[in-house]
Every structure is written in C-alpha cells, then in structure tokens.
C-alpha cells in the first residue's frame, strides 16, 4: 500500500546510533558551561567525601584533642583547626558532608517523587486538581521554615522526623510547579493527538507528559536544595533535627556560636561549606534548566555534532 525506497532496517540502525537522550543533553549542556561543570564537579567531590569520610578523614569526628581546644586553622596535624571540644574540624566536615547532603537532598528527592504524580494527576482531572491545590494553599499560608519547625516539633526530634517534616513542607511547592507545567502541557495538541491514537490516560500522563513536566520539577528541586540544606541546618540548630554529637554542618555552625569572637573558624568553616554546597546546586539547577528545555538545548550542543556522527 505504501511505497518508499528506504527500508526500515537501514533507517532504524542509523537512528538508534544517533538518538540524543535527555542524558546526552544534560551531559553536554552542563558540560559546555564551565561554571556549571565546576559546580557539578564540586557536588561529585562532596559525594565522594561523604562516602570516603571514614577512610580519608585524619581523625575520628568525635575524638577529643583536649590540649588543642579552639586552635585556629593551620595547626600542625589539624589543617582546619580544632573546635571547642577539641575535635578536628576537617574530620567533622568530611564526616558531616554525608549527613548534610542526606538532610538537604533526600527530602527534595522524596518531595519530587510525591509531587510529580500528584501535580500530573491534578492537572489531568481538573476538579481533583482544584481540591488538591486548595489544600496546598493552606500550607502556603505558613513560611516554609516555620512550618518545618512546627512539624518537626510536633513529631519530635531526630533525623527521620526532620526529613519527613521537610518532605511535607516541600511537597506543596513542588506540586504547584508540576501542576502549573502540566496544566499548560495538557492544552497542547500533541496530547490530543495521543488521545486520538487511543493512548490510555495513564500512558498519556506518565509516558507522554511526564518527561516534559518532570524537567520543570527537576530544575526546581535543584534550586531549592540550597534552601532545604539551610532549613535542615536550622532545625538541627534548634535541636529538632540531627542530634549532637553527630557531625552535621548545621549543628557545627550552631555549636560554634559561643566562640564567634575567640575562635570564629568553628562556625565559619561549616558555614562556608554550606554556602558552597548551596551555590553549587543552584548553578547546576540553572544549567539543567537550559539543557532540559527542548528549545534551548539544541543551541548548547549544536557546536559538537561530530560526537554522535
């Protein structure tokens, strides 16, 4: 019935070799921007630190070197100094990186996992969506940090409770992002074309729409990790999150507050570490936004077409 000179086999093998996935665009999009590349590298280093802390840290994070209390950075054997309890700050920073990442990143990831389906389904079934979003509005009435504090206080201190409190706080924000993106997306004709081709609703939502909508959520998540790290640190500071003596950057910052005049490095060093972490995630988030957007990402990779033939 249909005639054509090109056989499917030839076309398909070529196509498979040259298909550019989201990962391809993220890799080359983030990779082509030196600032984003540096930020991504930094996050990788942090992850490595978190994993390798027991191996590379010079001391046990809780070992007290009482004779060296409050010594500044540059002390022999303790390049970043010693805190008020005689603990090596470099070792505590290294050990704390895992906990800090966990407290900052896990709630965001869990929040996105809940928000993406919630926002998608809400946008697809407008009545349900209206109800869900009105419920979320109640949450928006509280400032994010205050809500997290209230929830954490209600559930009691501890890492798990803090993560749960942060997830509950984050879900409305992320859901709103997904809901807005999905509401726009479902108006587009390709969704109707999918319906005309007998695609079931769930497949439209989670196969056709999800990649377009998840990008918005991923970018948003990346930019909010900073705020979450700070909120988590704040909760730990208030005694509602991670409990001392566990090394965590937020607690470390707060523990040093009595010594700001005599030994500012105790607070300053973990504070700087948090700032760098937050900045790195924000920069990667910005680069992701460009490399996940089908309109802009082509520009990012256009100068390297030779890569995939």
């Amino acid at each position, binding site marked *: 019935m249909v005639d054509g000179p*090109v*056989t*499917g086999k030839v076309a398909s093998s070529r196509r498979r070799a040259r298909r550019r996935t989201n990962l391809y665009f993220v890799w080359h999009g983030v990779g082509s921007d030196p600032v984003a590349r540096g930020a991504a590298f930094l996050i990788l280093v942090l992850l490595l630190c978190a994993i390798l802390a027991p191996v590379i840290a010079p001391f046990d994070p809780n070992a007290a070197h009482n004779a060296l209390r409050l010594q500044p950075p540059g002390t022999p054997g303790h390049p970043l100094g010693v805190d008020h309890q005689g603990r090596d700050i470099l070792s505590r920073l290294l050990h704390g990186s895992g906990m800090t990442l966990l407290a900052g990143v896990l709630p965001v990831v869990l929040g996105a996992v809940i928000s993406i389906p919630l926002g998608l389904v809400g946008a697809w079934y407008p009545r349900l969506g209206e109800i869900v979003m*009105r419920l979320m509005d109640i949450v928006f009435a509280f400032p994010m940090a205050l809500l997290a504090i209230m929830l954490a206080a209600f559930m009691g201190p501890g890492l798990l409770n803090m993560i749960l409190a942060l997830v509950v706080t984050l879900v409305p924000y992320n859901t709103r992002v997904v809901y807005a993106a999905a509401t726009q997306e479902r108006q587009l004709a390709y969704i109707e074309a999918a319906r005309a081709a*007998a695609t079931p609703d769930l497949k439209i939502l989670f196969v*056709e729409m999800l990649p377009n909508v998840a990008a918005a959520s991923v970018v948003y998540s990346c930019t909010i990790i900073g705020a979450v790290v700070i909120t988590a640190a704040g909760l730990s500071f208030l005694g509602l999150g991670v409990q001392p003596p566990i090394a965590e950057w937020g607690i470390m910052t707060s523990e040093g507050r009595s010594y700001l005049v005599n030994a500012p490095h105790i607070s300053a060093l973990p504070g700087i570490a948090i700032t760098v972490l937050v900045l790195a995630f924000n920069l990667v988030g910005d680069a992701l936004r460009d490399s996940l957007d*089908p309109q802009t990402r082509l520009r990012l990779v256009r100068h390297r077409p030779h890569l995939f033939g």
Partner: protein
Amino acid sequence: MSGNLIEVRGLKKSFQVTRGAILRRVVGVTTAVDNVDLDIKEGEILGCVGGSGSGKSTLGRLILRLIEADEGRINFAGRELTGLSFKQMCPLRREMQIVFQDPLHSLNPRRTVAENVERPLLNFGVPRAEARGRMAELLTMVGLDPTQSHKYPHEYSGGQCQRIAIARALALRPRFLFLDEPVSSLDVSIQAQILKLLLDLQQRLKLTFLFVSHDLKIVRQIAHRTVVMYRGRLLELGDSDAVYRSPMHPFTKNFLGTVLHVRKGGRWELAAQRAEDLEDLNRQSATHAAPQAGCVYAGACAERFLPCASERPPLFRATDDRWVACHLYRPPQAAQ
C-alpha cells in the same frame, strides 16, 4: 444514504465555564455545536468554513469522540459511535485521525520525530522493529528523509512538522482524517505544498477528509463540497465551487465578500479577522435576544424579515445539492 462514511444527526455540545472546585458554579455557557446534521461521503473532501469560534474544531472533535457530545448521534462506517466505551472505541480510532493547526505543538517536543510517528503503531501492538520500518515508509510518503528521523521536532520547519504530523495521522492507515486548519499557520508558499500533498494522499490512499479552515479560498481549492458554519450551526452546504461563486446564505455572502476584498489586498489573514468581527457583532446582539428562537444570524443580517426573529430556519433544499438555513429559501409549499 449509501456511500456515507459519516452520518451526524442532531449533534449538540455546549461548554460550561465554571468557577470553583468545591462550590462549583456555572458562570457562562457557550453552545459550540448546535443541532448539526451532516453526512460525509466516502472518499470526499468536505470543507468546513466559518469564523473563529464558530464550532468547527468542536464539530471535528465530537466526530472523533475526543470530547463527548451532549446530544445527538454519530455513525461511522455503519457503526454507532455514541456511547462506546474507551475500549470499544479503540479499534475505531485506527480509522479516524486528526491533524492540527499548530504543527510544532502537535508533536511531543521531547520525543524524536521517529518516536512521535511510531507512537500510534506501538499503541496498537505493532512490534517495535515493524513500527520502525513503517515509520520510515510514512516519512518517505510525506516527502521527508527518514534518515533524519532521530532529530527533534524543533529542528524542523513548520511545514516539515506538518508533514510529520500527517505521517503520524496516517500511521494506522485511517479511512478518515479530520484536518483542523492544517495550513492556517504556514507561509503561503508552504500552504500550497501541504495542500498538494494532502490532495495527493487523499487520492492515493482513498481517504475521506473533513477539512476545516476559516478561509473559503483555501477550502475551495481542495474540497469537493463545502459547509459554512456560524455560531455552532450549519448555514449552507453545497458544491465548493457553487458556494464560492454564488453564495446563497446572507452570512456566506458577507463572509465571502471579506475574502474577495482581502484577495484584492493580497493579505489573507484579514479574512479571519473580519470573520471574527462578524462573530463578535452577532454575539453581542445575541446576548439580548432570546438565544433559543430565531435565526442565529438575525442580529447581523441585512435581509432579515418577519419570521427571522421567531423561527429558527432549518437547512432548506435550495437547489438539487444545495442546502441553506435561511427563511429566504423556504420552499413555497412550506414543507412541514
């Protein structure tokens, strides 16, 4: 009656504009398609013209059952579509497909061209390898190079995207295509190419088209018969050339006048603009009149007379194959 692929009877659809989820209230009602009877013959191109908001897209979506009708029946190839479930509708979806006005947005931006075209085939359980081969055939058929199908829709021009959308619509070997302003957003030079492609495919694959446009000039180029829509109702139906050369309904005359005027100026966009003005004008006057009685065009009609305000004219048979919904064409014996 034989030879009709699609028979529409008493089709009606109104949209309610609502506010609020928990305390839902209706703040407005638009009757998008109002009591439409229409036959589409097997193998014909039926043109459908009307101003923006006259219900052309809604009519096509109702026929494809992309939206549910409030009232009326749709018969497709002898099968009653009304009331079919999603499952029952599935096999019929193979036979009727849609092409949209905006070619770029009618393709999933994050899927390659190949994936976009293969999607309908995969939905119907065609094996992946076979779908891939068929995708290449389809792209060749619409004049595109299948070796470039790994690209994303943004890398193609508007006209090329429309070709891809046509290829996707043809993937399931449908009998009927609903073409919703398929060339309206394209450059004039590209329009001609796409129209030629559509005509060619229609003849080669023996397709039936419902071709919608707000531009009677374009419809006349491609359609065998033309139906004129206004505020959800069919006002005139007849051979495309006849409707174009000797319009009968006062609305068609006015509508056509704008097109002719615009042709002289050389800017076809103005036709749509003018048609929208006509719609607006009438909508404003209609808010005061009782919406259920009288001719829908009475508010703007220069030839209105006594029965126009009280009685809604059905489609009268003006000549052999010409139907006009206007009291001026009521047969003398007042057939009832």
